[in-house]
């Protein structure tokens, strides 16, 4: 939902980042307001997932230039857990397996940590069990997911559902979903998308990182951005995704180059 008067949630300016000394993000700009759904698309290696991880504060990535503000706060100065507590959620492309730790335990600790941060009531194991089971219905998850170790032995689709379950529990202000659609069959895609749709409110925002248009049939974006070589080189409405589906990415890059790479920034900018 586009509302130009809605408060800005995320403001990214000239963001540059590298991993192992290789520059990946090269001057990325993005503004996300409350209530908006953004899709970031682009070819492999364009820096989409890096962008998601940098926002969440992954320690392997080094920010070399630029600024990121989250609800007015300097996000880059915060450690990853503080970003999560501030209301930023990353749905992982490859959710991490944690053998030996029961999913229910993990979910409850995470939930209660955020509840405490927000000055809200924490739940004991029994209360939490009731609460999480309700949320699981949303994603058509079987309750035995609670007893299994976090993501261990989960299929690709199960892992992604578990991510969206966490989003449902944590009620983030901004959710960045990194290729949540990859590895999902049609049914799972529908269920996960429905889950996400139900979580979207005028107060929060979602950034979808994806390769494929098909996810956007289910979760309709307000803005579609195309990334290439570490920058957003084109921004459009949902129709852009359909055009990309038909024509691929090459033409966007060509068009951008023809325009003299007008939006290109130098690292020092």
């Amino acid at each position: 939902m586009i509302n130009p008067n809605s408060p800005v949630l995320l403001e990214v300016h000239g963001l540059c980042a590298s991993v192992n000394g290789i520059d990946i993000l090269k001057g990325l700009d993005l503004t996300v307001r409350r209530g908006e759904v953004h899709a970031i698309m682009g070819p492999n290696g364009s820096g989409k997932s890096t962008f998601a991880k940098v926002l969440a504060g992954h320690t392997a990535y080094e920010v070399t230039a630029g600024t990121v503000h989250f609800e007015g706060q300097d996000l880059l100065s915060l450690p990853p857990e503080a970003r999560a507590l501030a209301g930023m959620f990353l749905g992982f492309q490859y959710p991490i397996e944690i053998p030996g730790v029961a999913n229910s335990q993990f979910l409850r600790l995470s939930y209660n940590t955020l509840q405490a941060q927000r000055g809200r009531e924490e739940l004991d194991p029994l209360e939490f069990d009731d609460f999480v089971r309700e949320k699981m219905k949303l994603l058509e998850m079987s309750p035995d997911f609670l007893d299994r170790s976090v993501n261990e032995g989960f299929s690709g689709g199960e892992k992604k559902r578990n991510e969206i379950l966490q989003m449902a529990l944590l009620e983030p202000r901004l959710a960045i979903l990194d290729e949540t659609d990859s590895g999902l069959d049609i049914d799972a895609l529908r269920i996960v998308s429905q889950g996400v749709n139900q979580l979207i409110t005028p107060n929060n925002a979602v950034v979808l990182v994806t390769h494929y248009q098909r996810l956007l049939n289910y979760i309709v974006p307000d803005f579609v951005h195309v990334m290439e070589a570490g920058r957003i080189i084109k921004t459009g409405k949902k129709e852009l995704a359909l055009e990309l589906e038909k024509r691929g990415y090459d033409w966007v890059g060509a068009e951008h180059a023809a325009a003299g790479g007008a939006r290109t920034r130098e690292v020092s900018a």
Partner: protein
Amino acid sequence: MSAVLQQIVNQPYKHGFVTNIESDVAPKGLSEDTIRMISAKKKEPAWLLEFRLQAYRAWLLMTEPAWPNVHYPKIDFQAISYYAAPKQKPKLGSMDEVDPELLRTFEKLGVPLHERMALAGVAVDVIFDSVSVATTYKAKLAEAGIIFCSMSEAVLEHPELVKKYLGTVIPTGDNYYAALNSAVFTDGSFCFIPKGVKCPMDLSTYFRINTEESGQFERTLIVAEAGASVSYLEGCTAPAFSSNQLHAAVVELVALDNADIKYSTVQNWYAGDENGVGGIYNFVTKRGLAKGVNSRISWTQVETGSAITWKYPSVILRGDNSVGEFYSVAVTNHHQQADTGTKMIHMGKNTRSTIVSKGISAGQSNNSYRGLVKVAPTATGARNYSQCDSMLVGDKSGAHTFPYIQVRNPTAQVEHEASTSKIGEDQLFYFAQRGISAEAAVSMIINGFCKDVFQQLPMEFAVEATQLLSFKLEGAVG
């Protein structure tokens, strides 16, 4: 290793303090005279002096084992004082008479004795340095016919029982450190559960080394007669000293027909500082004899302390259908070294053993599992299941597994599973992204990793162990 890991790996030992109690310390050095002195001080019968001297003579002919995967400077056994007793009032009528300084020490450790007695219903045989200063709940146990007292007391009051069982599971010349212990042991616990009696409460001993450079040579003997059962808890902490301290304990368990002994240990002795200076050398011999049919001996250990741990709680499965179990968590950090595991010796028919070992290595530490499963020709239908999991924290620690399997009966079934895992940056990032701090994450991962072992601990001990590990993990693992 990341900054986060680095940071949580380095936290000082929380039990590092010295209690000021005057000690009566023997001059350093070991000779037959020292042994005679110890025996005389303790007013021991002649047969026990003879037992000690025999052990000493055997020890003189032995060499220190070199096979463990641990490294340390040669120990000068003449530089150790073999006897230290807190100076105490002649008689202790009640707990009120116990040195208040001593009680405060327990409080600092988070083990208020009064509370433990009152709330937990645990009888604490407090060993402070080498002499028992307080034994509680003895009267109540005595009603059930159970003897639970210090070894010194048992030698004086139940010499026939001690004589019957002492050294029957671990002979005086069994190994270098067991021989040394047999020669110079000063005290320990003695526990006797008569025929058919189920011990109504968990029996617990808190060991604590207090005098700098006084070797500690505890001797513990637990006997469960036919149909008897007992759960015994041993927990340790020690103050921070800069010089190494040798600890060579011997624990013997004897289970007769249908008897059941469960022995649980939480060990948190001073491990040395982050540069590997100081810390306890923990060279322990623990062995149980499942002597009778259907008898069962179960060892559970949570080893978090000591500079060096060398320890293999074992079970000799002699009775038909007897059961041996070993559940272990060993955590090493900084420069700690642990070479620990078990031996399951199957002799009786249809004997069963289970080994679950979890090793966690952080810092620059080295953690080895060493285990022997031996099936004798007589052990028809013997079964063993072993599981050895290692977890590495950071990239400078080592985990090793040395399983030995000797099967001499074709009907035996022996299974061994092993795994190695690592607490990775990605796992910590995943937790962090869900708002969970690295410390809480590590604690949760480790507790999950150790779950199978913690489940074996008695309830209140499990809580303690979890907390202890969290310390260590705040400190250690991370």
